[in-house]
């Protein structure tokens, strides 16, 4: 027999097998035979490698070249290149998710490199079914050692190690063993809980598949310590591979004398039996598990007596989980001091997590206890895919809770997690992004525990059912605000009264989401809205749900697809008058939620709209319900931005004749003051403003609150309701020395000055400070106005910039330079004029409460950026008291007006507010929504009831075949004018789609709004 020169470690874990590892192996065998090299290569089937999303996985030694997503088609190339010619195949290697750089070697891949692999040290390194390979990695050395120790010494070592049960509650293992050791009786049992049933958890399965002997060895040592002669492994029937490997390993041990009588020449007799679980989550509870092994319904019984006194068949018993046993040989072999070298003082060692959900690298990770959640999610997990935002991590399964982004920085250890309302649990760690609805998530977990409740005790049997019913109601939009308190109260009571651990922790997912995401519950109940777009009853289509203004997106898209442009526009303007404006500047949250991206890419909704508005020859006035009573009522709107104008628009549709006061010479607010003309041509805005005027709205420009009129004055004039939509017009100061220097301005002032007056002083070397849209607008405006160089300074990285990605890209195309991880500390001047920005290099440190990494100073030499103009665009604020005329209006914690979120009403009955003046700088669509809500609120206050007829759902009669496969067109690309033709002027950058492209794009819509007639 020839010695193989290559070892191909093929992951044969459940996930890789499911992904087709056996087919790949077949192909490899065939291909190697073709080359006559079958004896050159050892094909080793290993247990789960942990990188489950990338299966099938092959690691080739020597060298440890890591291949993922290998298909049978890749095999020929792999053999020809790597095996024959020794040239690793780059195409199949891992690429860094951000840099896209190839990382050939398994140990360098961040996913693996950042882990602390101890319990899993054999995963992927040994043949899972080989006892000898286990022995070669010092397997059974710990047993041999333990057999020379007294049971008390073993227990002492485990106690000193500080090992805590990895099954969830974290009870000290050594102490548990000691109790059982000391319990009276000759017959004792040791049991291993391998009934892992948490949704999303697969740590135990992986360990059993990858390294079954480690678990057996741990059990043997435990048996020796407590004095057991028999052990049981309770493993779920859903894990056929783990069961197969366990059976094989036990058979090997029996054959070779490691189980049976007189093990390793000692007086230790021990054997292990496998007991198959049959699908009951509650059997993870120790007393229930023992009942199940005994052949009964797996119902928990009250403790005491504890199993250590009275367990399996009423004999003293110890139950530990798979991972706990996996730790034991390490402790005995290496000693407790070594063991304690990682982890925290209270919780030494490592913990294995099954990292799943919305995270780039899904898989099995072993980390030191006490590592921060952010490190697991971002450094090991590779962050959130598809550019979505991290929302929460669910830890501990159905007994656990959610940790929101505010706590990404906390150490993951037993105590901290409990403080935050989660638990360590057995190790399921599910990452959720902005598309996860926390109410739905809580409902999901409660549904699970409800299904899995054994039904023995009242609080769990009936109480969880009642909680689920309340959650179902909330998710269906039938909840009441009192339901929140009911959930809280019932949840806390169940925790306090249920019989077993399952029941006592069952309310946790609800209580933790109530604690961290109460506002989502409120949105479901009060606003009948599921912000994440998940709860089917509240969501007609995810795009429409995501639109703050509630535009019927599938409706206008499908109408556009049928070339019924007027109807499409009319439908759009039912909820949002600014079709043309939004076609250009909308944040298009609708596209972020578009389900088409599960097929290929989201629909280009904004571009469809851009094409659509292009088809409008004359603007049609929408349906107006004339009303003589309303027409006589006086309503004033302060501020002619999108919020104010929308409020006027919707009031006019109800027959009111509101009057709008605008401080600046032209209506439009930020649309005209801040957004540059190359993004929003002035005529487009003017057309839609004219439409509103034609509906009976008066706009009085150059009329500033506090200067030209006062609120009290308006009241005296007979205005019965006033809507404040004054925006957030003041730029935030940098708060560093030198801000008073000449050449220093703020972004909003800079843009306003140019946009309203047509000129603004621009330097040659301009620095823009900030990363939002205002910063990018200022930068691109400066370039157009002739600045030689424009540099955007931002203290975090490009990924964290709040500005649109496409705007940043276009800015760069136009010559704007981006310098990230740099924070201005001082503006330096000469003769009163700014000459340089002194900056500190930054690096990303811990996670802050927004879930982003907080920049911190790098302690490098400061950087001087030479400038002659500085535009600070780091935020906007409202100086509320300025114009309030002594009227006491409540403000929120950010210094904006506090209002009733459904009506926009302030604490002063006749005073309403909305838009940026309430939310801070926000989007046009949000402003439209705020205006609409205020219009409805004002009408309700004046008339006693709401008449928002436009909110009624209207069926769209476009054709749709639900059976048809989605059309296979790719997403339409935007057409832009070349940089050279736009860099020096304010011509609109983006061109509309052609009719063909636009209507084809419309047909890409999956019509999530479609409901079968029932």
């Amino acid at each position, binding site marked *: 027999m020839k010695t193989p020169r290559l070892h191909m470690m093929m992951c044969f874990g459940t996930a890789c097998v499911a992904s087709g590892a056996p087919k790949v192996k077949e192909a490899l065998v065939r291909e190697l035979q073709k080359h006559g090299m079958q004896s050159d290569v050892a094909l080793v089937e290993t247990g789960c490698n942990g990188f489950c999303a990338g299966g099938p996985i092959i690691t080739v030694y020597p060298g440890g070249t890591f291949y993922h997503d290998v298909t049978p088609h890749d095999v020929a190339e792999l053999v020809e290149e790597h095996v024959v*010619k020794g040239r690793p195949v780059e195409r199949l290697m891992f690429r860094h998710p951000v840099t896209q750089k190839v990382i050939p070697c398994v140990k360098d891949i961040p996913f693996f490199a950042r882990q602390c692999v101890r319990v899993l040290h054999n995963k992927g390194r040994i043949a899972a*079914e080989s006892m000898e390979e286990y022995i070669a990695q010092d397997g059974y050395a710990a047993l041999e050692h333990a057999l020379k120790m007294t049971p008390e010494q073993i227990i002492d070592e485990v106690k000193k190690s500080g090992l805590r049960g990895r099954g969830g509650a974290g009870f000290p293992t050594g102490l548990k063993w000691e109790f059982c050791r000391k319990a009276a009786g000759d017959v004792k049992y040791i049991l291993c809980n391998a009934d892992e049933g948490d949704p999303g958890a697969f740590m135990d399965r992986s360990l059993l598949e990858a390294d079954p002997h480690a678990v057996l060895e741990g059990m043997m040592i435990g048996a020796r310590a407590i004095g057991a002669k028999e052990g049981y492994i309770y493993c779920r029937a859903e894990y056929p591979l783990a069961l197969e490997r366990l059976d094989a390993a036990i058979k090997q041990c029996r054959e070779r004398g490691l189980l049976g009588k007189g093990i390793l020449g000692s007086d230790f007799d021990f054997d292990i039996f496998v007991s198959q679980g049959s699908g009951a989550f509650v059997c993870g509870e120790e007393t229930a598990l023992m009942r199940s092994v005994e052949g009964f319904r797996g119902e928990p019984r009250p403790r005491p007596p504890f199993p250590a006194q009275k367990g399996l068949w009423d004999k003293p018993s110890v139950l530990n989980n798979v991972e706990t046993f996996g730790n034991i040989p390490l402790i005995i072999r290496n000693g407790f001091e070594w063991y304690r070298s990682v982890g925290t003082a209270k919780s030494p060692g490592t913990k294995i997590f099954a990292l799943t959900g919305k995270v780039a690298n899904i898989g099995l990770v072993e980390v030191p206890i006490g590592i921060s959640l952010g490190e697991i999610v971002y450094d090991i997990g590779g962050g959130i895919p598809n550019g979505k935002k991290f929302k929460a991590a669910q830890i501990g399964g159905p007994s656990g809770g959610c940790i929101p982004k505010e706590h990404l920085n906390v150490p993951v250890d037993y105590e901290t997690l409990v403080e935050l309302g989660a638990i360590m649990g057995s190790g399921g760690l599910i990452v959720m992004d902005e598309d996860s609805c926390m109410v739905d998530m809580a409902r999901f977990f409660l549904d699970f525990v409800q299904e899995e409740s054994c039904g023995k005790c009242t609080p769990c049997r009936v109480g969880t059912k009642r909680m689920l019913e309340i959650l179902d109601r909330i998710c269906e939009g039938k909840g009441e605000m009192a339901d929140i308190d009911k959930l809280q109260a019932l949840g806390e009571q169940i925790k306090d009264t249920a019989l077993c651990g399952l029941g006592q922790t069952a309310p946790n997912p609800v209580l933790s989401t109530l604690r961290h995401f109460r506002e989502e519950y409120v949105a479901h109940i009060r606003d009948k809205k599921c912000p994440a777009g998940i709860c089917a009853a509240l969501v007609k289509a995810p795009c429409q749900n995501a639109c703050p203004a509630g535009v019927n997106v599938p409706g206008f898209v499908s109408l556009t697809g049928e070339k019924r442009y007027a109807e499409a526009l009319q439908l759009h303007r039912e909820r949002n008058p600014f079709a043309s404006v939004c076609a250009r500047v909308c944040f298009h949250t609708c596209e972020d939620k578009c389900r088409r991206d599960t097929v290929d890419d989201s629909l280009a909704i904004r571009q469809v709209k851009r094409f659509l508005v292009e088809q409008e020859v004359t603007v049609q006035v929408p349906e107006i319900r004339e009303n003589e009573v309303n027409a006589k009522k006086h309503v004033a709107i302060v501020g002619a931005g999108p919020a104010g104008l929308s409020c006027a628009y919707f009031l006019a549709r109800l027959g009111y004749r509101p009057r709008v006061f605008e401080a600046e010479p032209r209506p439009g607010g930020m649309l005209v003051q801040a957004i540059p003309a190359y993004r929003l041509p002035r005529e487009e805005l003017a057309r839609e403003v004219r439409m509103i005027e034609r509906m009976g709205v008066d706009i009085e420009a150059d009329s500033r609150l506090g200067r030209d009129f006062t609120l009290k004055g308006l009241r005296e004039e007979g205005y019965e309701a006033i809507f404040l939509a004054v925006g957030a017009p003041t730029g935030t100061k940098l708060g560093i020395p030198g801000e008073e220097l000449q050449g220093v301005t703020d972004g909003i002032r800079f843009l306003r000055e140019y946009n309203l007056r047509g000129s603004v002083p621009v330097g040659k070397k301009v620095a823009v400070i900030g990363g939002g849209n205002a910063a990018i607008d200022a930068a691109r405006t400066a370039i157009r106005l002739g600045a030689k160089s424009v540099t955007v300074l931002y203290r975090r990285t490009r990924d964290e910039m709040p500005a649109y990605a496409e705007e940043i890209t276009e800015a760069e195309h136009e010559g704007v330079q981006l310098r990230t991880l740099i924070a201005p500390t001082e503006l330096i001047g000469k003769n009163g004029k700014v000459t340089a920005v002194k900056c500190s290099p930054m690096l990303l440190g811990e996670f802050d409460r927004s879930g982003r990494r907080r920049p911190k100073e790098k302690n490098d030499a400061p950087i001087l950026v030479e400038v002659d103009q500085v535009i600070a665009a780091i935020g906007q604020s409202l100086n509320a008291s300025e114009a309030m005329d002594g009227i006491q209006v409540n403000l929120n914690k950010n210094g904006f007006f506090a209002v009733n979120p459904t009506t926009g009403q302030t604490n002063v009955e006749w005073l309403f507010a909305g838009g940026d003046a309430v939310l801070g700088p926000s989007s046009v669509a949000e402003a439209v929504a705020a205006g609409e809500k205020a219009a409805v609120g004002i009408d309700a206050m004046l008339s006693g009831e709401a008449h928002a007829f436009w909110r009624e759902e209207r069926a769209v009669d476009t054709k749709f075949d639900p059976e048809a496969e989605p059309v296979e067109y790719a997403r339409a690309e935007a057409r832009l004018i070349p940089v050279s033709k736009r860099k020096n002027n304010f011509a609109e950058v983006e061109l509309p789609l052609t009719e063909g492209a636009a209507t084809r794009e419309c047909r890409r819509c999956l019509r999530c709004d479609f409901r079968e007639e029932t």
Partner: protein
Amino acid sequence: MASSETPKAGKISSLKDLQAIKERVLTDTALRADGYKVCITVHMGTCGIAAGAREIMNTLMDELAASGRRDIRITTSGCIGVCVHEPVMTVERLNSEPVIYAKLDANKARLIFREDALGGKTVSQLALGVGKES
């Protein structure tokens, strides 16, 4: 091609038995270790294979197995562009310059393995040059 389980498995009844298994298996699986002291690369381009690189490879693997050493790694690589000198192999000892040996046959390969890889002495009469490929 299967894993390293031996069919004639006896009872394990002492530390000695465990150690014996460990020694044997570690030799068999030495390839998977991270560190190594000597790296031998056989250049197996089309020309190399035609010139007999396979035989060289087999010889080296046999030698390696016989030596019981776990810190020597034998790998392959593609053609290095000195086709006239094929078969060619490179021996690189830790902390010293790699040496390219050319126009090999089984005997030469065996000699180089013993002298250079095991003995630490460059077999200068067979060396084509010193330095990395490419």
